[in-house]
């Protein structure tokens, strides 16, 4: 069958029944009552939830072959929990697990691939599987019976609460915790800041294990994950590498191309009628977003306006705006560096939020629905403004879905920023390889070669008027696509087999695209 964005999909992949994407704004309005694995549970007879080792915690949790385990990715590339837990599970001989972290970060030594190869893991569901695991899946180095299910952040809470993804044991890393299970990521030597991606797991898993390297006196303060959801606490030597969890504040890029893209973006946002006192925005992390954040701060000071809130994954640049009084509330679903990680405990207006509050489309309204401006990165965009954030130019796994599809859909004005070409790889193409975010939800794209507005976006006329009034020139997406082609040439199309290795879900749980095994 063919879905609303023209992608050819099988009816069924393994046991996964495909519900085709019908279009933005057409999400099914009833998924039935919330399904949870959480059990009403008495206090532990021993008076403590502390267990000696990860093996003990796994045994106590009742983990069996074929069950589902989950993790959060708030420690990013610095995570040392996933490797330790999987090793302990392997030592106990438990097999065929469904591995369902909020995202697979590129953990090495050991790599997740090893646990797939030895049969510890047989199914994977996450927002992205970049790195070794992704390459192994897409190249067919590892063969799974079920497709990998990739969900944007806004789809995972729904998948859990609707029963599509029932979690048996959640292993949740915390940089500080007490023996009764109160835990946080905001303090301690390995602080990661917001634990936004851990809440839905804590609320709905059958058993919850807190893994920490920093046991504190009862009660832990602040409390992010409350003791009422926690079954066991384990202390390990090290939960992460602080340098990789959150390096210091990223310096403003000096790359003149990135600065130019950032300046164009800030100019376009400032030209909008929605850029006024009390507006809201999400810019994200990375060289271009941080430069955009800094340029926006300049514009806000010039116009003497303040934002009501900044949302999402938060870098130091946003905290800097908060400290200057330019933003009233900073709502962190994630903290991208050490400055942002520590800012939550230090500032009343910098708050930790549950990912479901941030992005869940089935949360009676989430915070990103209230965004005026959302800035997104992308690997590719096509002439229909569809975005690919998963696969690179050779078809390799390059990124995760993250909250991109959610922000594009929720924000009044979504802006995709990317360089026209990266080396010889074109970023503006006739047709994206993997479609992750539908073009109808993308208002404009900004490159160093100009800004293109999407005529199919609901705010096209408004934006066209506002940009024209500010004297900002625009180009067409077709012009950008042809310019990129004239520079790099026409790439040979990526060849795939018919075998589907991954499903890309949209935020409403329908299938927007699939990823097929690469022909080599």
């Amino acid at each position, binding site marked *: 069958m063919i879905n609303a964005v023209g992608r050819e999909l099988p009816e069924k992949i393994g046991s996964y029944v495909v519900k085709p994407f019908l279009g933005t704004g057409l999400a099914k309005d009833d998924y039935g009552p919330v399904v949870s694995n959480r059990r009403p549970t008495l206090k532990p007879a021993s008076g403590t939830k502390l267990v000696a080792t990860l093996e003990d915690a796994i045994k106590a949790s009742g983990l069996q072959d074929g069950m589902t385990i989950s993790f959060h990715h708030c420690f990013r590339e610095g995570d040392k929990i996933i490797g330790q837990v999987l090793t302990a599970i392997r030592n106990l001989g438990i097999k065929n697990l469904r591995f369902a972290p909020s995202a697979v970060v590129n953990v090495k030594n050991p790599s997740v691939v090893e646990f797939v190869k030895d049969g510890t893991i047989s199914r994977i569901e996450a927002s992205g599987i970049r790195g070794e695991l992704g390459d192994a899946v897409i190249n067919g180095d590892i063969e799974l019976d079920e497709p990998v299910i990739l969900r944007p952040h806004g789809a995972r809470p729904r998948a859990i609460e609707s029963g599509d993804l029932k979690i048996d044991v959640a292993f949740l890393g915390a940089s500080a915790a007490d023996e009764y299970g109160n835990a946080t990521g905001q303090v301690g030597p390995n602080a990661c800041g917001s634990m936004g991606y851990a809440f839905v797991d804590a609320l709905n898993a059958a058993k919850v294990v807190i893994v920490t390297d920093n046991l504190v006196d009862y009660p832990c303060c602040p409390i992010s994950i409350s003791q009422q959801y926690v079954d066991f606490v384990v202390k390990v030597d090290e939960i992460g590498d602080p340098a990789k969890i959150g390096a210091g504040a990223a310096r403003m890029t000096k790359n*003149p*191309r990135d*600065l*130019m893209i950032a300046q164009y973006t800030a100019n376009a946002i400032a030209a909008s009628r929605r850029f006024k006192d009390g507006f809201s925005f999400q810019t994200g992390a990375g060289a271009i977003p941080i430069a955009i954040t800094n340029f926006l701060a300049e514009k806000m000071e010039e116009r003497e306006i303040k934002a009501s809130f900044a949302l999402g994954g938060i870098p130091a640049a946003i905290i800097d705006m908060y400290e200057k009084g330019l933003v009233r509330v900073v709502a962190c679903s994630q903290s991208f560096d050490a400055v942002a990680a520590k800012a939550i405990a230090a500032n009343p207006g910098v708050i930790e939020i549950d990912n479901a509050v941030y992005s869940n489309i089935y949360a009676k309204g989430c915070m990103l629905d209230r965004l005026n401006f959302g800035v997104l990165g992308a690997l590719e965009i096509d002439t229909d403004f569809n975005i690919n954030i998963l696969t690179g130019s050779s078809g390799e796994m390059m990124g995760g879905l993250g909250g991109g599809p959610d922000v594009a859909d929720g924000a009044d004005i979504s802006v995709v920023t990317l360089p*026209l070409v990266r080396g010889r790889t074109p970023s503006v193409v006739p047709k994206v390889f993997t479609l992750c975010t539908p073009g109808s939800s993308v208002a404009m794209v900004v490159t*160093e*070669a100009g800004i293109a507005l999407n005529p199919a976006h609901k705010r096209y006329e408004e934006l066209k008027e506002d940009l024209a009034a500010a004297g900002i020139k625009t180009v067409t997406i077709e012009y950008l696509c042809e310019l990129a082609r004239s*520079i790099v040439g026409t790439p040979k199309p990526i060849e795939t087999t018919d075998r589907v290795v991954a499903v890309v879900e949209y935020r409403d749980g329908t299938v927007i695209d699939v990823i097929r095994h690469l022909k080599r």
Partner: protein
Amino acid sequence: MGKTALKRTSLYASGASPVNLLQARFYHEDCLVYDLEDSVPIAEKDAARLLVYHLVKYQRPTDKYVLIRVNGIYSEFIDEDLEAAVRACPDAIRIPKVEYANEVKRIAERITEIEKKAGLPVGKIELWCNIESYLGALNAREIAEADPRVVALALGAEDYTASLRATRTKEGLEIFYARNLVLTACRAAGVEAIDAVFSDINDKEGLMKDVALSKNLGFDGKTVVHPRQVDVVNAAFTPSAKEIRYAKRVLDAVEEGKREGKGAVTLDGSMIDKPMELRARTTLAQADAAGIAY
């Protein structure tokens, strides 16, 4: 987008770096200078020459004035540089360290020979002469008038001040005389005057002051060394809305005076003289070139 008639900014891109050469087309400079001289190490001159030739020939930006800066007239590289540069067909070749008119004549003749051999239209490639020494400055008018190909002189302050034994400062008093000398020569010869680089790429305020001085002195544009300087310099050489409005009123008053056969025309109580009219015409020509509607 058509090619600009403006020469507000000319940005150097190093012939040693493909990524710099490819990126440079996306900044807002009016003139893009593909450099074979100072930014290319001696051992890479051959490779840079081939790189610049191929990029100008096959990836030339259509909305910019394209130049190739060749190596010095007395360097071992000049012959091959000219062979390559002429065949790449840029808008202009920029010659460093020009001191005498006969140097320009020799280069122009050499270009004509290559154009003929290569079957290219003769005389199409223009010349920019860099004035980078006291001799160049003193001979500026003859250099500017040496050959019809010469369309601009560009002051190079670093080498010039070194030749004088002067100290280069941000304020630039040491180049004040050379600026005036070059500018006056350009006006006399009817060519464009391009001011020297402001070297500190991190000092935006210093650059703004320096380019304001360039503009007030009468220069048509300025060489820039970093993409970050481009927008500031362009802005300084683009007339403001207020300047355009005033120029328009001056010229409207002049027109009205002509129609009514008045000898003297006044605006806001003061008489409009010839210099005022000339300045107004220059302002509107600059606005036209920058594509500003008024």
